[in-house]
């Protein structure tokens, strides 16, 4: 009997790839992109989240910046509902090892597409965001990954005239200010104007990025920026250096300018980083059986499950990985009341309170930046990633969950979203393997 993976974001694709590697017969159900395609170029596993007390960027006592590894320890010590804690208890080392294994796997999946995952749990990168604020990141994809600001003598923002929401003049000031606030020496920051090729003046990232996948267009840009770099100087450009060939574009720019070039961090629609990840994952899944459809119902049967697809033929399978995401993905729905649409699984916020069955706004609090129960809501799982019923028992032995569908953490605020997707997918796959009598 095969295994069905419902949801084709990072969690679902990771699960499908791991299942296939272990020799299981797997069908991935792909209903189109979710949150993964909107990501900002970081694969956050334990990045600093300055608004969250238990994910500080600095050691509160000693004042020195924390390593991502130390933050994982803080998560499992401080946040009992976080999926890392659910999976590994207070064993932070085990969580770190799982993260590192998952990142290695991700690296192998993405490398054929030329997309590298840089970073480690023992170092933090300091990167520039589009408005000039900085982000302390752990793992970063090709594009922004070469933009570490530490130790630079000079940072130069390349102006792209007319580009929407891109305004380097003030960003340069903000960058200098934020680095100083982090206690890091601020490099000289300036804006490079008047060199961007006129042919490449486009207001929208979504129009510019695909053009830069073409070699001749890259050549135009290389010629325009030729000689502008130096080893001590970092050139920062908007997050639009191609969709499928960002690696090639960056290395050509590096050669032409004679220095370091990187994208700043941004989000859709002002960046293409998430689309790159989604496309590279799709390519990695080319050997996986994919059914492009949306699951409309999930029924338990004696020997497994039946997946329903509206009028289309149903699919039988022996085990199910639910990787349907949150609100963006569609794993949690909030029309009228908050609910998990396929099975009606109970949903809990980070404080362990149930939120399903009530209107979404009742799970909100005043103050935008405060913890919002609504946005930490998802299914509760056991350490084997089996969703639990309201009585705390596994819903079904061979039903597991992965990614944003699992509640107890807030991917926006806590910056562990993709880390959770990868680690929970790996743990869920282990459970399926054990249940199906397979050992990878």
């Amino acid at each position, binding site marked *: 009997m095969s295994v069905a993976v419902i949801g084709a974001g990072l969690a679902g694709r990771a699960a499908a790839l791991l299942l296939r590697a272990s020799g299981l017969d797997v069908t991935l159900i792909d209903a189109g992109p979710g*949150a993964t395609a*909107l990501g*900002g170029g970081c694969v956050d596993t334990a990045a600093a*989240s*300055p*608004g969250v007390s238990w994910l*500080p960027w600095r050691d509160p006592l000693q004042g020195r910046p924390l390593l991502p590894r130390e933050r994982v320890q803080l998560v499992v010590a401080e946040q009992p509902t976080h999926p890392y804690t659910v999976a590994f208890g207070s064993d932070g080392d085990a969580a770190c090892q799982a993260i590192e294994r998952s990142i290695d796997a991700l690296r192998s999946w993405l490398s054929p597409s030329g997309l590298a995952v840089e970073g480690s749990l023992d170092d933090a990168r300091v990167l520039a*965001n*589009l*408005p*000039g*604020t900085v*982000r302390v990141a752990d793992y970063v994809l090709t594009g922004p990954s070469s933009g570490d600001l530490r130790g630079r003598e000079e940072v130069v923002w390349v102006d792209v*005239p*007319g*580009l*929407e*929401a*891109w*305004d380097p*003049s*003030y*960003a340069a*000031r*903000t960058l200098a*200010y*934020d680095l100083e*606030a*982090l206690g890091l020496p601020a490099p000289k920051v300036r804006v490079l*104007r*008047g060199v961007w090729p006129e042919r490449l*003046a486009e*207001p929208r990232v979504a129009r510019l990025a695909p053009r830069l996948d073409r070699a001749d267009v890259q050549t135009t840009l290389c010629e325009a920026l030729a000689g502008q770099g130096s080893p001590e100087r970092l050139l920062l450009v908007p997050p639009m250096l191609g969709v499928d060939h960002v690696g090639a574009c960056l290395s050509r720019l590096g050669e032409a300018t004679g220095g370091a070039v990187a994208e700043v*961090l941004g*989000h859709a*629609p*002002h960046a293409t980083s998430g689309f790159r990840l989604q496309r590279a994952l799709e390519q990695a899944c080319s050997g996986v059986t994919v059914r492009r459809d949306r699951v409309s119902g999930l029924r338990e049967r004696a020997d497994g499950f039946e997946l329903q697809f509206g009028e289309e033929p149903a699919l039988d399978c022996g085990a199910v990985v639910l990787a349907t995401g*949150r*609100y*963006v993905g569609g794993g949690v729905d*909030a*029309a*009228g009341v*908050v609910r998990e649409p396929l099975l009606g699984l109970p949903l809990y916020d980070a404080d362990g309170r149930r939120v399903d069955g009530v*209107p*979404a*706004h*009742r799970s*909100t609090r*005043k*103050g*935008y*930046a405060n913890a*919002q129960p*609504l*946005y930490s809501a998802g299914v509760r799982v056991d350490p084997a990633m089996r969703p639990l019923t309201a009585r705390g028992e596994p819903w079904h032995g061979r039903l597991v969950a992965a990614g944003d569908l699992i509640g107890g953490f807030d*991917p*926006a*605020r806590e*910056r562990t979203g993709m880390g959770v997707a990868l680690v929970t997918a790996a743990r869920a796959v282990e459970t399926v393997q054990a249940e199906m009598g397979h050992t990878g």
Partner: protein
Amino acid sequence: MSRVVRTRVLIVGGGINGTGIARDLSIRGIDCVLLEKKELGSGTSWASSGMIHGGLRYLQKDPEVTLHSCVDSGAIQRIAPHLIFRIPFLMPVFRDDPIGPEILEIGLEMYDRYVPFKNGRPHGRLTRDQALEIEPKLSPHIEGAFTLDEWGVDAARLCAANALDAQGRGAQIMTHAEVRSFLRDVPGGRVTGASVRDRVTGEDFVVEADLVMNAAGPWAPEVAEMAGEGFRLRPGKGIHLVFERRVSQMAVYARGVDGRDMFVFPHEQNAMAGTTDDDYYGDLDRIQTTEDEVAYVLEAMERSIPSIRQHRVLHAIQGVRPTLFGFGAYEDELSRDYRIIDHGAEGDAPGLFTITGGKLAAYRLMAEDAADLVARELGENEPCRTAELPLPGGDAPLDIAQTSRRFRVGLPAALRLGFRHGAGATSLLAATEFDPSPPRTVCACEPVLDTELRHVAREEGLRRLTDCPLRVRLGVGACQGAGCAAAAAAVLGQELGWEPARAIREATELATSRWHDVAPVLDGAQVAGMEVHRAVLFGLIGFSESLR
């Protein structure tokens, strides 16, 4: 010693009444200072339906209000044609309506007599099939429909236009300036000015004036109380739901479970549905839309447009009507007319006047009345000219296509700029005409250009990012600020010399104020919308003072 500003007339409140009076006085050459504790129009005026309607619903009980509204609607169209848009209405007829179509039509025929004053078309009558053809989302249970003609306005921009005109004629307009107490010449004597706090800088200063006009809308009793004067309003809370883009082609009437008339109508780039009317005695500075109100509005709309719940509600708007007090009457039957109180004649605070009640649509007439009285008090006899002189930008039509070509901006951007600034869009854009690169789009929903943001910061005295949803409609579209908060903070930061920390704080506060309006209506697609919103803004801004 705190700073002292001297003027003849101090106006408290920068809603439509305060700004309208400031303009009227300035045209008459009477020096005045207007103090607004937040942003121009941020009180009731922003919360209104933005309709310069003739007040059909007041026809039966208060035809005076209908007449005022219609006459002045015509005047507003003359002086600010750019800010006005036609809203054709459709009134579906159901079998179980309490008032049959024949009687309804008699009412509409009566209304037709007022309609020419506001350049409207007389009402029309449609069969069921005609109505469904025009408005396919209408309930199949209708039996026919009437049409009538009303006008909409950007209320916040109308306040700004009045204030800017006043400023151009010498008035001082101060936003984020809150009146905290009044000055008296002797204890209990004449009101001679006010102590004011600048809520941005924290500075306390004093404005001395010959006369004070309290135009604080629903806050008017609170302000009068500072001079020991008591009078009562019957504050009526009203909310609207704002939908993404259009719900219907025309405005459509709906009926609440309690029989009240409501409507869903196109408003600017979006659609609005409302409104409610309930007594409100809570904190005027923390009005929040409740679950019951949202349910009540949606339920009413559902009767006319059954698919209403499939539309994405972006946010709510809430406000309180400064309705004149009438004991025991139902909320809806309270008078919509206005009063000017002379606290010297009617109380113990000579020098203080309060204007209260009324409607947006009748603001110009109310302002004329108030300014006549002020002029008399001050011994001036210049007549009112606000019905003839155009508001800024209203003097000539803007050629949208030519503006788009000449200034290298897209047609939608040119159109919206023309809507907000009228003919003034030309000089606004001329500031960047010869820049090497064209203006940048900061907010793609509206769209808003960086050039416009720079203009409102430089020329219109805009002070905070949280003022932008009102002043230029930034962040009130589908993205609710996710796409533009950081970029707009940067542009204003440059213009207003903000430290980066201040710009980050401004962006944070914009997000917080949008959340206030969005949280009560979170449902369906908007829950996912705000999930993206949070991921983007937490990513870009960080929301942390702890870094610093």
